[in-house]
């Protein structure tokens, strides 16, 4: 939808940094969301997208709309956050989780606590659920999936995916070398792929804001892939402290394939388990 719109009428609005600061301050002071430390380049583009989609001529127009209709903020949050995701993105990573990471945790533990931080529409959660079913250890693993966007959480809970996305998901699944065919796990209804509901019946989907929220549990494995790329370095450091604190000692942290802990203050509390797949292990409290 966006790419067609974009392709046809790409308008780059003249958005100044001061405009963005006024917007983020307003949303932070009055609406409980904090975008002040988002990465400026992508945040500006997301705001530009909102101006385009809702036909605002400037950031001022957007600010006025939020002031007159506070509930509109939820839509803004939904558009600011990037919700493009795939099942089994980076198949070699998922093979690594199946073949090494989870078996390693199970060597020392009877059960595994997993947190999908910033789960978006749930594709990674579904991938994990399928992986666990194929390993035959669903009952031993507790999945918690969080996002700050209520509407995307509702979508995740429904576990439906537009059929047009399934071609890519199927390809990823084949590269992941799953033991079935992906089509075994869903059926098509009216242009959407409806996932087998039993896959996610024990998943706990919750609203949680990585930026403002606190520590709510301890985990053996935290997946936070391609979430912090939308934050600036300072915010990444803050969020990483929380992820670190949310891990048991010797628990695993997994970030996106082109993210790195190198520049982060907390790097010395982790060791690299797999650099290619960006799998880290907490070694210090």
């Amino acid at each position, binding site marked *: 939808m*966006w*790419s067609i719109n*974009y*392709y046809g009428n*790409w308008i*780059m609005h003249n958005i100044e*940094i001061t405009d963005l600061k006024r917007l983020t301050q307003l949303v932070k002071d009055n609406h409980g969301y904090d975008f002040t430390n988002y*990465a*400026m*380049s*992508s945040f*500006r*583009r*997301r705001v530009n997208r909102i101006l385009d989609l809702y036909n605002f001529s400037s950031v001022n127009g957007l600010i006025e709309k939020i002031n007159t209709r506070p509930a509109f903020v939820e839509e803004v949050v939904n558009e600011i956050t*990037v919700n*493009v*995701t795939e099942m089994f*993105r*980076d*198949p*070699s990573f998922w093979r690594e989780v199946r073949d090494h990471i989870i078996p390693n945790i199970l060597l020392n533990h009877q059960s595994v606590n997993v947190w999908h931080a910033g789960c978006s529409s749930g594709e990674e959660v579904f991938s994990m659920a399928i992986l666990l079913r194929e390993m035959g250890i669903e009952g031993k693993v507790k999945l918690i999936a969080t996002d700050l966007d209520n509407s995307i959480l509702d979508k995740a809970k429904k576990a439906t995916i537009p059929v047009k996305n399934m071609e890519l998901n199927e*390809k*990823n699944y084949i*590269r992941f070398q799953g033991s079935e065919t992906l089509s075994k796990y869903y059926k098509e209804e009216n242009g959407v792929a409806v996932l087998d509901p039993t896959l996610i019946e024990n998943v706990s989907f919750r609203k949680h804001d990585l930026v403002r929220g606190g520590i709510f549990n301890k985990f053996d494995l935290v997946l936070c892939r*391609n979430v*912090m*790329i*939308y934050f*600036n*370095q300072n915010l*990444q450091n803050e969020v990483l402290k929380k992820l670190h604190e949310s891990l048991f000692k010797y628990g695993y942290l997994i970030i*996106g*394939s*082109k*993210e*790195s802990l*190198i*520049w982060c203050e907390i790097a010395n509390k982790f060791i690299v388990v797999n650099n290619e797949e960006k799998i880290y292990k907490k070694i210090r409290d």
Partner: protein
Amino acid sequence: MKKRSIRRSGIKYCKVVGDLGMSKYKLDNTYRAIVLGGSAGSFQGITKILSSIPDSFELPIIMCLHRLKHVRNGFVEALSIKSTKPVTEPYDKEKLKKGKVYLAPSNYHLCVELGNSFSLSTEEMVNNSRPSIDITLETAAYSYKKRLIGILLSGANKDGALGMKAIKDNGGLTIVQDPNECMIKTMPESALQATTIDHVLKVTEIIEFLIELDKNYK
């Protein structure tokens, strides 16, 4: 066609004055980065450029090339083989450094952040592409304003045209590969339609341009 012959004879003339120490493209050392976009039919031109620039080339070169989404490895190595300088795929929040050559990683958009670093994004495809050349060019233009040079090579869609427009609108310098030389000319032609292009050059002339540019930084 007339335009071309004037431009080409101009280059020949300039070659002579170049020897007298004058510059052909009237360049200075105010630029801070080069962004380079390409798609179908651009690989040869890019390897030619990367193998011809001096290894002491000063400005960072940020490349956004259309590539297979699911193939993470191999491309950067293929480009590095012939390059005088190593090519790297930046990590999110990596600082831009002088003299480096960067390549947008597969399945991510590469944005240039204010404060001289990169940000990656997995947002929607743009012009059916991720990485999208428009995104890299536009964010670089926003960060560097007139201190940016954009170069667009052969390609089969119009990705990059609006990015080149953003560079021009911010006062930067725009170059496209001569469509007559391109294997597929849609990309440079779209840029020519979208905005003012300062130079339409063959790959050998782009190399000449870059070498002349670099002399201003020594």
